[in-house]
């Protein structure tokens, strides 16, 4: 059997191969750009190169998300010498023009060029998404050339498990799945559990409407997730890993599968990883279409092949989790932070973000903005900068009304709180949550009771039906909201609405139920007049 891979040599080989080519043309093949037709764009670029006999000299690299998804398909041309150029909305016909501009000294395709000095790019800070849009996610060599698996190599050869946990604790990294539990503390709990078999699970069951942070991380840089998971396993003493991906993400599953195979081939997963006495196999488990399976106890049940119902805690998964063994679940974005935390050190990680919420957060920016897409920003940035600088503000003639964070578990933040820094505590104090990273901006045409009804309909459909307050409460809340929105509500309905929200929040079994009233309570808090108008004037639903 071949010896362990020499990462430096592999990276060197890859960089050498790259420098022998005169130009690399990157085509975003992430889901948003693919649906905008980047598959055809890629083929058109390849055809244009072949027609010139330059297809060996110039490589076409299918990459992950470059960011401004609403401007896709995106193409970046990187000549060996000289500056690179980013192009937007590149259709099949435009591919030839862009190739001509760069290879034949034809007229510049300036109308399609996208200035990377725009605030959309400069206000961001890419850590988790450092490689997204820059590497071919299906090539492990690309990841290694960018410094991939060096953090794993470092911890395996130079750090003890408890040292790794100390570093993660010192970094202040908190769970990116929404609740913000300190990652280092979670790891310490699993490490302290005394059992011959322990599991670590990557949670890729992202399900908030409009959110696609985790999907992007898994699709665009799958090795970063695997590396983070392996580091977690080494630190906690787990000897088996799972990645739980929702079935609606077939491309993520495919790329992760390919990544796992490649990592095994290079002995970066499996037995004797990087020549160390460390064995860590990883398997993928696919969900069956239930939002609640993102909740950790339901996720465990689903991985075991059982019905995805949440169960009572205690016992917590770190005490008794998957197959009755101590287990730990980390969100994929959390795991994707780890290579950086290890390589750059906790101080460097802490230098970004706020005291209590260090690091960056990926958001899926959507709604009534000039530019929408996937962004990664330092924690503590104000909502105003996200909306006005990165998103380019609300289109002409309309005004900002509210930003919804945290999906069906979050709340709506009104204009007067736009200067709030984005961190776990600040968002919670406004009645919303950080959540996994959905961020929907609404202009003044949005009607908040309808927004609340939309999210309640989602929760009603996604309730597993185990506990009474969530199973019945979400149905009742939806019914009330629907009645109010249709102008058939009575003033006393608002009182009942508030009381139901309190009971569902206080008594539901899991986070899904407990947080499901948030969209209602936050809109009642900031936009009470809209509800009052509806029950008073019995305005007919125009939605």
């Amino acid at each position, binding site marked *: 059997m071949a010896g362990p891979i020499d990462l430096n040599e592999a990276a060197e080989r890859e960089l050498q191969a790259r420098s022998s080519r005169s130009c690399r043309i990157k085509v975003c093949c992430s889901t948003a750009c693919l649906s905008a037709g980047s598959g055809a764009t890629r083929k058109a670029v390849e055809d244009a190169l072949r027609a010139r006999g330059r297809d060996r000299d110039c490589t076409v690299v299918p990459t992950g998300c470059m960011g401004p998804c609403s401007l896709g398909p995106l193409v970046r041309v990187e000549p060996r010498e000289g500056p690179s150029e980013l192009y937007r909305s590149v259709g099949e016909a435009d591919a030839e023009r862009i190739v001509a501009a760069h290879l034949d000294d034809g007229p510049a395709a300036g109308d399609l060029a996208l200035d990377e000095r725009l605030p959309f790019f400069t206000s961001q800070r890419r850590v988790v998404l450092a490689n997204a849009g820059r590497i071919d996610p299906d090539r492990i060599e690309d990841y290694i050339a960018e410094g991939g698996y060096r953090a794993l190599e470092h911890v395996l050869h130079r750090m003890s498990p408890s040292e790794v946990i100390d570093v993660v604790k010192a970094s202040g990294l908190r769970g990116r799945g929404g609740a913000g539990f300190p990652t280092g503390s979670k790891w310490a709990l699993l490490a302290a559990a005394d059992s011959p078999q322990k599991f670590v699970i990557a949670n890729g069951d992202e399900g908030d409407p409009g959110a696609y942070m985790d999907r992007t991380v898994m699709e665009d840089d799958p090795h970063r997730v695997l590396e983070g998971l392996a580091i977690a396993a080494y630190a906690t003493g787990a000897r088996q890993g799972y990645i739980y991906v929702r079935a609606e993400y077939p491309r993520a599953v495919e790329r992760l599968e390919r990544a796992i195979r490649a990592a095994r081939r290079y002995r970066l997963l499996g037995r004797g990883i990087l020549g160390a006495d460390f064995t860590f196999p990883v398997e993928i488990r696919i969900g069956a279409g239930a939002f609640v399976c993102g909740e950790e106890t339901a996720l465990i049940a689903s991985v075991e092949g059982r019905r995805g119902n949440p169960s*009572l805690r205690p016992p917590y998964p770190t005490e008794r989790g998957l197959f009755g063994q101590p287990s730990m679940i980390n969100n994929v974005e959390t795991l994707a932070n780890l290579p950086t935390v290890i390589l750059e050190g906790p101080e460097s990680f802490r230098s970004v973000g706020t005291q209590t919420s260090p690091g960056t957060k990926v958001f899926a920016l959507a709604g009534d903005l000039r530019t929408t897409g996937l962004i990664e920003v330092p924690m503590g940035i104000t909502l105003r900068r996200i909306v006005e600088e990165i998103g380019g503000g609300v289109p002409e003639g309309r005004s900002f009304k509210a930003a919804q964070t945290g999906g069906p578990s979050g709340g709506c933040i009104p204009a007067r709180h736009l200067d709030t820094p984005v961190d776990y505590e600040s968002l919670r104090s406004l009645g919303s949550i950080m959540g996994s990273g959905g961020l929907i901006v609404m202009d003044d045409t949005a009607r908040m009771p309808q927004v609340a009804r939309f999210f309640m309909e989602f929760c009603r459909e996604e309730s597993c*039906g185990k506990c*009474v307050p969530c199973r019945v409460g979400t149905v009742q809340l939806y019914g009330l909201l629907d009645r109010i929105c249709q102008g058939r509500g009575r003033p006393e309905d608002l009182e*009942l609405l508030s009381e139901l929200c309190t009971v569902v929040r206080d*008594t539901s*079994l899991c986070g899904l139920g407990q947080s499901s009233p948030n969209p209602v309570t936050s809109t009642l808090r900031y936009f009470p007049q809209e509800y009052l108008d509806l029950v008073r004037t019995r305005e007919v639903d125009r939605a």
Partner: protein
Amino acid sequence: MPDRRGVLELSLDGRRLNAREGQTVLQVAREHGVPIPTLCFLEGLSTWGSCRICMVEVGPQRVLRPACATPVVEDMEIRTESPRLRAHRRMILEMLFAEGNHVCAVCVANEHCELQSAAAQAGMDHVRLEYAAPQRTVDATHDRYVFDPNRCILCTRCVRVCDEVEGAHVWDIAGRGESAHLIADMNVSWGQAGSCTDCGKCVTVCPTGALFVRGTSTGEVRRAPDVVVRLTTARREHQWLPAGEGQ
């Protein structure tokens, strides 16, 4: 000196009490005669924690926790009664009544129904919520028993007793959210369920009139849910005869 290991002290509704490590709030409360309403909980079965009417307030922050599933800890401060708890329990009961079709006057379990008595105790005299009035078909295919899903509150006592005590696992839940419902075997009618041993344990633990013996008329249901704890204790302790008659 008595052995004080594993003994802890806590406060229950302002009373200082001793409890044993490993006990739940519900066990301690019942030992001391403090009533906490329950529906899905049944001694002898695993804890499911889904009905949420046994919620109590814990600690100075008065966090709500299900009494059936919360282990006691040293110095725990527990309140089983408060205006908030009463309001919450009442609302949860209203939810249950609004969800199914509970018509006490014509129910086999009238006056022998845990849902009904919990509602009476909570002072729930009317339902403010909209009745869902679902259309559900009664399953009377079994030779000896009947299942009326209109009265089912999905407490899963039947599921658990069949799986954990009888070992047959006839019952389970299918569907989710408001569509969640009880099924026999792989969703066949009860009479077709080959795994059913006709033992009737599910019928005897049902807290409402959802499961009953064929031919039972209004108010005629008699339950014996304590059979579960007698059976499980007997199995664990190997006591198959009343004390003194063994050996």
